[in-house]
């Protein structure tokens, strides 16, 4: 009998804990392995830095890896909602993974904060997507910044070379629109694959079109290859990259060949150079300090900051929801969703979040700055 009791007691305690709902469970799925691992690993590192009590209630973070596979991401979301009964889903790092998870979030009525950039994750806010929020800026916000900067520098013709995937397609679509609005003529649109070892063919075609500027629509270190090839082939015009390259590894791999590149980025990338009255400066510096204390100097990246912003949203919304209902219940999840939608004027590392029933990103032009690579470092362009 005592042996049976010893087995049952912890189990009973566990059940009691669940029933009381004294703790908040946050389910996180990130792409810590696979092609998007360079986004997923910083996200996972950041989640480990998030506060474990909010409003006096203990918060558990359950982190799973989806290997950059959308099927696994959906499976993780199902597991987190049905087995761990999470109150909130966070993730994943790529657009396809996040799109897949929307159904699970809507079906189980669990609010979800995506860490991927694509606008179609949260737009238009409909019956399903009312449960979904995201922290990274929309591509459209960044694409208009690039097009405007080009127009201001007197660029007339521009060529595009991007990934042959959702990231490249998204940028191609948004940049085409922004270019038309700024009277830029797009003279070439080329594609390449992330693991490609040569883009000579595409670059030759771009050079034949003689553009004033080239925009590379790639993320992370694979975006170096087209630019290196352009330099090798003697291209002298302006080169633009997207905010997807804003991590230290891009500078390391690119070296002197990426010198002079312009790119749009979240303010966190150049936090220390921001004017003191910039709303993100304090938060961004605080985040960088926390992250680099644990992982070493120079390690904090824009991708990690998206996860930090998700943490800030949680810290803003949970105390509001706690007044309405107890964690672990359907009422709590509904209240949490409403509280997330009600976040106004929250200063994050990437900008100011002003959520509304029609806008589940809530970022405006304060969430982007133009940056130039000078002397192997990111420099704020005034």
């Amino acid at each position: 009998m005592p042996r049976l009791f010893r087995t049952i007691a912890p189990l009973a305690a566990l059940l009691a804990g669940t029933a009381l709902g004294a703790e908040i469970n946050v389910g996180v799925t990130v792409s810590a392995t696979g092609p998007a691992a360079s986004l997923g690993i910083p996200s996972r590192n950041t989640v480990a830095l998030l506060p474990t009590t909010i409003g006096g209630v203990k918060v558990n973070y359950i982190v799973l890896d989806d290997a950059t596979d959308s099927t696994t991401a959906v499976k993780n979301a199902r597991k987190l909602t049905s087995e761990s009964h999470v109150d909130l889903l966070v993730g994943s790092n790529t657009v396809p993974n996040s799109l897949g998870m929307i159904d699970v979030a809507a079906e189980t009525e669990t609010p979800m904060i995506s860490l991927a950039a694509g606008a179609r994750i949260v737009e238009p806010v409909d019956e399903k997507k009312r449960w979904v929020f995201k922290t990274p800026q929309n591509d459209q916000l960044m694409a208009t910044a690039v097009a405007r900067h080009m127009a201001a520098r007197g660029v007339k013709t521009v060529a595009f070379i991007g990934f042959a995937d959702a990231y490249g397609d998204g940028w191609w679509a948004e940049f085409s629109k922004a270019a038309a609005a700024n009277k830029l003529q797009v003279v070439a649109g080329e594609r390449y694959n992330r693991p490609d070892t040569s883009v000579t063919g595409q670059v030759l075609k771009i050079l034949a079109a003689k553009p004033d500027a080239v925009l590379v629509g790639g993320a992370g270190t694979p975006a170096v290859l087209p630019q290196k090839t352009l330099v090798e082939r003697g291209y002298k015009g302006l080169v633009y990259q997207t905010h997807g390259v804003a991590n230290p590894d891009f500078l390391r791999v690119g070296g002197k060949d990426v010198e002079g590149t312009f790119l749009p980025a979240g303010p966190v990338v150049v936090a220390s150079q921001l004017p003191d009255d910039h709303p993100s400066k304090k938060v961004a510096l605080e985040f960088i300090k926390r992250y680099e204390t644990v992982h070493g100097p120079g390690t904090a990246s824009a991708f990690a900051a998206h996860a930090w912003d998700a943490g800030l949203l949680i810290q803003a919304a949970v105390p509001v929801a706690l007044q309405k209902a107890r964690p672990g219940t359907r009422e709590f999840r509904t209240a949490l969703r409403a509280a997330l939608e009600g976040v106004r004027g929250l200063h994050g590392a990437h900008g100011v979040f002003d959520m509304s029933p029609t806008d589940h990103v809530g970022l405006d032009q304060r969430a982007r700055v133009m940056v130039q690579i000078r002397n192997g470092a990111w420099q704020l362009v005034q």
Partner: protein
Amino acid sequence: MTLDVALLLGQDGLVNGAIYALLALALVLVFSVTRVIFIPQGEFVAFGGLTLAALQAGRVPGTLWLLCGAGAAVAVRDGLAALQARSARGLPRTLLWSVAYPASMAALLRLAPFRSWPAWVQIPLALALVVPLGPAVYRLAYQPIAGAPVLVLLIVSVAVHMALVSLGLLLFGAEGFRTAPFSEARWDVGGIPVGAQSLCVVLFSGALIAALWLFFERTLHGKALRASAMNRTGARLVGIPVGLTGKASFALAALVGAFSGILIAPITTLYYDTGFLIGLKGFVGAILGGLASHPLAAAGALLVGLIEAFASFWASAYKEVIVFTLIIPVLVWRSLRTRHVEEDD
């Protein structure tokens, strides 16, 4: 398309094709000797390049831990086999390769200032770290089931590929690396710029292919490998140890793979998972040669490189589709031309 562009694309295609040709040769070699379709071939490309990049950055490459782990596993396996056979013959040799060798490498990396060494010392060091993994993989994954049907060996290859890619992520991280170029020199040949590095890739590939040819035609070990490729049973009957030829062919495949990785690391960014696609294109080349003929495989691989270069100019979004669709007409043609023989496993 002007002549200039065509020449530049041709040059690019030849450089990539030379690498595919090396891998195609290694794949044909491994297949003909052991009947293994060596999918993990590409991983050795990535490991070779990343190991050299780590050495140049002054970090102890993760391959060392892989080497130590594989060595320990081989020692345990061979030790158990010796216990079962109640014979210690061959044990000293095993211990030398699987314990003493990784240990001395570890000591060397700990003590030596390898970061400041010139490239021609760092490259053999990188090869010394990666190449022994080939025979170790054969000993651990393939030798115990050497007699299994081709399909089983193929499935094991997929498993080994998955395991090595995952280990690559663990040891090297998700980010890409480049190595310092052998030379930054560029020349104008008839108005077309030719980079020294591209020239190195073609020259060294050619040299390695010639060395392989000499090895197979002129040395006893090479002839033994060819004999076991032609007829395993016959080779065993005349006293060629088939287990040893398997290990030798894997060592050669690992050498070719790692060397290819070192050749391309200065001209492209290498990731832990880059190798798979490169290996796959080498495989397409090998298929063009029917997985049997070395010269045809090399020619097929060069063709893959050229088609890839021109496809990336005309229809960049469909480049991979074009390259891999190439395999269909070739298979149809081959199956119409050759009489199908049931495999007698």
